[in-house]
């Protein structure tokens, strides 16, 4: 077996001797390679520095058994990066030092940047403008593609759309149902405690019906889809950028807005309202079950009372929100996916930004909806 330090090779060592003329000699022995130095570098470095502080000292490196660049550099640094005047070295080891001799000085450090904050602000502003431009361009391109599609409907990416609907819609049914149900139960339980105090038990139907159908259902479904499908879309497009698949599509003359982005936007705009209906429905079931347990309102009477408590227009409003949220999520995710640079770090940053931005966009859009439709479907006649 060949071991890092076979018996014949000794540990690195420094011996001090006196020459005939009375000057001091430092004799280096043993193996000065990375395997031997790994554990002793710091002590040997300190020792060598101390010895090298005497400029008249002679150095004898010829007894060294093994040398590599690590050992040579360690000795070289102790010398102050130049050869001592009195040096003996084995011919075979000369090469390691000649590599060091030819070294030019390290490049100078960059001067301090006093305008860093101003620069950062400017860069952030430009980045925001760039994002805005990118999204507007993307929307414009998609509108143009849509017109082409309307004129040649057979050329549409129908298979891609259907596959995307399955991926973002059907496969999200489980998680949205679970989260919706739990939110319904928790909301119902908390409200029931308060309503009981006022003896207003029956208003649980209004509270849950309005809250879930109009607000919570759409927002919860959208946040889940943004985290689930938004990140997947960004990562997919990003990886396609890294592997040059996007460029391959471009050179084949297949516009990636038609094949990749349009299907995702259409699919999310289609699937999102349906997912919202599903989430709200399950959340209401959860709420009704909890109301039954807390307040003794039977599930049957809960759902009988629901249409009276919540005007139907709220359902349409929720569906409308779904279309807008879905398209927004897909648009933001695709925008960030296309911006990914061909390296792994950019992919991670892009995916994070995509999810954060799409959730923010959904909440902002929800607030806009709340303002615009503030007197629709709330007042009771």
């Amino acid at each position, binding site marked *: *077996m*060949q071991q*890092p330090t076979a018996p014949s090779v000794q540990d690195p060592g420094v011996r001090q001797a006196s020459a005939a003329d009375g000057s001091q000699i430092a004799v280096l022995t043993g193996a000065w*390679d*990375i*395997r031997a*130095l*790994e*554990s002793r*570098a*710091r002590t040997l*470095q300190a020792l060598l520095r101390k010895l090298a502080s005497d400029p008249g000292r002679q150095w004898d490196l010829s007894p060294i058994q093994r040398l*590599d*660049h*690590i050992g040579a*550099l*360690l000795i070289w*640094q102790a010398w102050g990066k130049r050869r001592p005047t009195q040096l003996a070295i084995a011919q075979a080891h000369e*090469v390691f030092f000649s*590599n*060091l001799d*030819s*070294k*030019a000085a*390290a*490049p100078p450090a960059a001067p301090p940047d006093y305008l860093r904050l101003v620069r950062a602000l400017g860069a952030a502003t430009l980045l925001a403008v760039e994002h805005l431009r990118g999204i507007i361009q993307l929307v414009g391109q998609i509108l143009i593609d849509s017109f082409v599609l309307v004129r040649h409907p057979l050329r549409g990416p129908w298979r891609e759309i259907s596959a995307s609907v399955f991926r973002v819609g059907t496969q999200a049914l489980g998680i949205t149902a679970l989260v919706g149900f739990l939110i319904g139960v928790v909301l119902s339980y908390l409200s029931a405690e308060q309503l009981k105090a006022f003896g207003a038990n029956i208003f649980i139907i209004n509270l849950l019906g309005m809250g879930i159908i109009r607000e919570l259902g759409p927002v919860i479904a959208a946040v889940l889809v943004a985290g689930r499908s938004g990140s997947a879309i960004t990562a997919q497009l990003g990886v396609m950028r890294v592997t040059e698949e996007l460029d391959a599509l471009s050179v084949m003359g297949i516009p990636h807005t038609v094949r990749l982005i349009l299907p995702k936007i259409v699919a999310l705009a289609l699937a999102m309202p349906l997912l919202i209906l599903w989430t709200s429905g399950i959340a209401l079931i959860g709420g009704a079950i909890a109301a039954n347990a807390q307040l003794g309102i039977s599930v049957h009477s809960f759902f009988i009372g629901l249409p009276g408590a919540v005007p139907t227009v709220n359902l349409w409003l929720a569906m409308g929100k779904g279309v807008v949220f879905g398209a927004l999520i897909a648009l933001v995710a695709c925008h960030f996916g296309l911006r990914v*640079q*061909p*390296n*792994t*770090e950019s992919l991670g940053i892009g995916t994070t930004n995509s999810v954060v931005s799409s959730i923010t966009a959904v909440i902002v859009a929800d607030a806009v909806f709340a303002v615009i439709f503030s007197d629709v479907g709330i007042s009771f006649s």
Partner: protein
Amino acid sequence: MNPVIEVAGLWTQFGDHIVHKDLNLTVMPGEVVSLVGGSGSGKTTLMRQILGLEQPSRGTVKVFGIPLQGSSAELVHKIRKRWGVLFQEGALYSALSVFDNIALPLRELRAFDEDFISDMVMLKLDMVDIERRHAAKMPSDLSGGMIKRIALARALVLEPELVFLDEPTAGLDPDRSESFVKLIRSLHETLNLTVVMVTHDLDTLVSLSDKIAVLAEQKLIVYGSLGEAIAVKHPFILNFFLGERGLRALSAVNGLDHLRLNNGN
């Protein structure tokens, strides 16, 4: 001298598909061994098994006399510090700058100060002929040739005794690959490295290798010098070495001229 790499009775099987069947390979210190073979003959798989990235179905792989399978994690870790690997695409960490890529293995040792590491990185950059001003760049800003050189610098930074090169000259222009071959040869001479490489490039193969291992029909059909490899009558060898491209590369080598007369037509 003890062999650096010992592969004995190695089988690789993916389902019903047998890639290697009872394969043996021994590499001695200081040798430059080239693995050649057609696409799908399992060159890269064999190299990955020697590196411990994949497990063979049967058989043993010993590196520096230590079996990779069944040894303690500590022992295997010691081996990993004694070899360097140049991956086909360089595999530079894209989140780190050139400097940090090369410094990473040194920093992991926790034995040297930053000043030492900085000098060492600069020395390695000099060795692979990369200007120092590139040290702060990110891998995505570099050309393919520079990525290969920097990846080689990273592979060499721990002064390995054994170096693996996966397609070292693939994707480089002829001028660059020529200088890359020269670089590897000079490093081999000065540092007395053992080199194992996978290559399709005949010029690289002819100018660097001491020994050639030809993988075909699930085993090594030849393992020997270039002359010995060419002497074997096997369809792969005839196509690979004695085809038009092969002869052109071989014509640069003295003493093999008779082959042209025998097999050229």
